[in-house]
């Protein structure tokens, strides 16, 4: 053991100091520190890794699938046209990767990053030590939210980016084709793809918001992630019951496929705007409740 007494600080130097030397509330839990905290976790690495792997798996599947002998997917509609066109060029391949992931995989990824972030700290018991540093509660939540969203957007971007890269290498740099509109030249196609990415990012904020709220309310990370995905699925199911009429417009999943409007010529943006409005309202409400709750509750973990 060291001789603490002889090497110690002189506590009497400024007895009335309101904080330890070097402590500033706005400097606690820097964004970089939180990024590192999350980056070292296996689930972050796996989730991001899978985003890179998925386009490769799809590519291999197309290669093994051989020609277009099996037409069982030709059920009609916008989606099947995406399947048919997936191998027509890099842009279409990236679009296909997004289309197959948007319904469920990306929902899980967003829920994972946003739902796990606070609840896992609570379940490890490290949350109370962060708060005792003290990291101001609102700051803790803000940093955690920003970093979680950053990772979620990164995952989305990795998926599309890898799809575009792999698809272009294999199928070439061709215009974005779709059966419901004229061909879109590659340059504009990239813009459309970015638009689709942005819309997906916005619409998935609802999942991120819900998962984040649950993450604050519970100490079980699995509960937060699973709960958010579950409610998203429930909303999707309700959205398919036409008897509900205009109530469905208020469901967070109602406009989740509106990005397909960006594939038509000219682009149909009405639903995009409606979807973005709905998503932002939901996300702000969820985050607002999360902040309200977390800044007031007793931490019992």
């Amino acid at each position, binding site marked *: *053991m*060291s001789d*603490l*007494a002889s*090497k*110690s*600080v*002189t*506590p009497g130097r400024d*007895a*009335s*100091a*309101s*904080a*330890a*030397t*070097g*402590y*500033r*509330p706005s*400097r*606690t*839990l*820097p964004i970089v*520190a939180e990024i*590192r*905290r999350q980056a*070292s*976790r*296996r689930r972050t690495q796996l989730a991001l890794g899978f985003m890179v792997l998925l386009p490769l798996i799809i590519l291999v599947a197309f290669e093994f699938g051989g020609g277009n002998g099996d037409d069982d997917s030709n059920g009609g509609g916008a989606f099947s046209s995406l399947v048919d066109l997936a191998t*027509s060029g890099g842009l279409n391949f990236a679009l296909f990767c997004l289309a197959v992931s948007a319904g469920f995989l990306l929902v899980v990824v967003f829920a994972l990053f946003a739902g796990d972030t606070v609840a896992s700290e609570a379940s*490890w*018991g*490290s*949350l*109370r*030590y962060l*708060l*005792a*540093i*003290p*990291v*101001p*509660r*609102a700051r803790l939540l803000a940093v955690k939210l920003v970093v979680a969203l950053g990772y979620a957007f990164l995952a989305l971007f990795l998926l599309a980016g890898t799809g575009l890269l792999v698809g272009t290498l294999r199928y070439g740099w*061709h215009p974005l*084709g779709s059966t419901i509109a004229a*061909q879109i030249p590659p340059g504009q196609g990239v813009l459309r793809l970015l638009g689709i990415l942005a819309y997906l990012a916005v619409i998935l904020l609802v999942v991120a918001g819900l998962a984040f709220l649950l993450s604050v309310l519970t100490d079980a990370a699995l509960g937060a992630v699973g709960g958010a995905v579950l409610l998203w699925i429930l909303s999707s199911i309700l959205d398919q019951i036409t008897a509900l009429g205009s109530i469905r417009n208020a469901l967070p999943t109602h406009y989740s496929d509106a990005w397909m409007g960006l594939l038509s010529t*000219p682009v*149909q*943006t*009405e639903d995009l*705007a409606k979807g*973005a*409005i709905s998503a*932002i*309202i939901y996300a*702000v409400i969820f985050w607002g409740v999360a902040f309200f709750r977390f800044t007031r509750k*007793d931490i*019992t973990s």
Partner: protein
Amino acid sequence: MYKRQLQIVVATSDQAFLTPAAPATYTVAIDGQLTLPTLVGTPIASPAAIYWYVLGALLAVVLLGLAVLLLVRRARRRRRVTAVNAELAETPLVVTGLRKAYKDGFVAVEEIGFTVERGQVVGLLGPNGAGKTTTLRVLMGLTTPTAGEIHVFGHRLVPGAQILSRVGALVEGPGFLPHLTGHQNLEAYWRATGRPWEDARFDEALEIAGLGSSVHRRTKNYSHGMRQRLAIAQAMLGLPELLVLDEPTDGLDPPQIAEMRRVLQRYATDGRAVLVSSHLLAEVEQTCTHAVVVNKGRIVASGPVGDIVGESPSVTIDVTDVPAATEILTGLGVRSVTPDGATGLIVDMNGTPRAELVASLVRAGVGVDRVVPRRRLEDAFLALVGDNSRGSGDR
């Protein structure tokens, strides 16, 4: 790839037998260039645009609201920092009238108040459920008290108060990121404080943890005792002026406990202070300079350990014949005689020397197996907890 094809079909039809009777062949040719009719589309006026304006307005409202909220918070925080009680500025910890009642009516802490001065190692002693941990939770800003105040170096302590940065804590067991090594955990913790790297004193903290090369193993593979020691080291990072440790010796083996005792005593020199909670009498007696005894959410006794633990006027005697001994002792003018177990008696001496007590018993032919002077703290405990063998503060 798609090739757009345009097909022109020319067809004839029988128009109600009005065709000439003689057979004929017609040849059709394009005259010059075929031109297709083209139309410039005019967008239909749709209400779509209005939704984009709504979206823009919504974003503006959200951003504005956020800005207002931030400004209000900042102003409020600034006001809070300035509230200093100058009289208490030199005192590491003053707890006054602390009370915590939960919504379901359970009162974890009835009323607790005590002071920790510089240079003291104060033991918060009490049975399980006495309200020790709740007190420490409030002290860490994790729980809001129902009533009462806490001042740390004169600064009022509320959840998230800046003054907490001068307090190091271990409350309710260690909390580490399981996928990081012990060393990485300490680094991650210090990084989260945002304070200068050299202020952390990692080497001294790691020496206290005494984990050797295990410090480079992941904490999820640690034993309970190893985690505990790492948590104490984490609490000591930056050598905070007030150290709060909840059951620090939990999971440690006897040599480590002895070592920890020395570390804590040394830590409290040079103007620093330590608050330790424990449910073990001996623990507090050996480690602390001062003790605060808590039971059922109330302070029972407090003061220097010497005063509290000093000898009490009572003694425990094991005798061969309890009824006879009781009779003899009552005749000696002691204050009270209480049976304790099958052969034991607790005698409140009221000034009678122990030697005389034993001599009288032996003279009367009662065999004496054991005479044990009792101590005040034990008396206090017995009186409080009663003879209930559960010996806990469960309510």
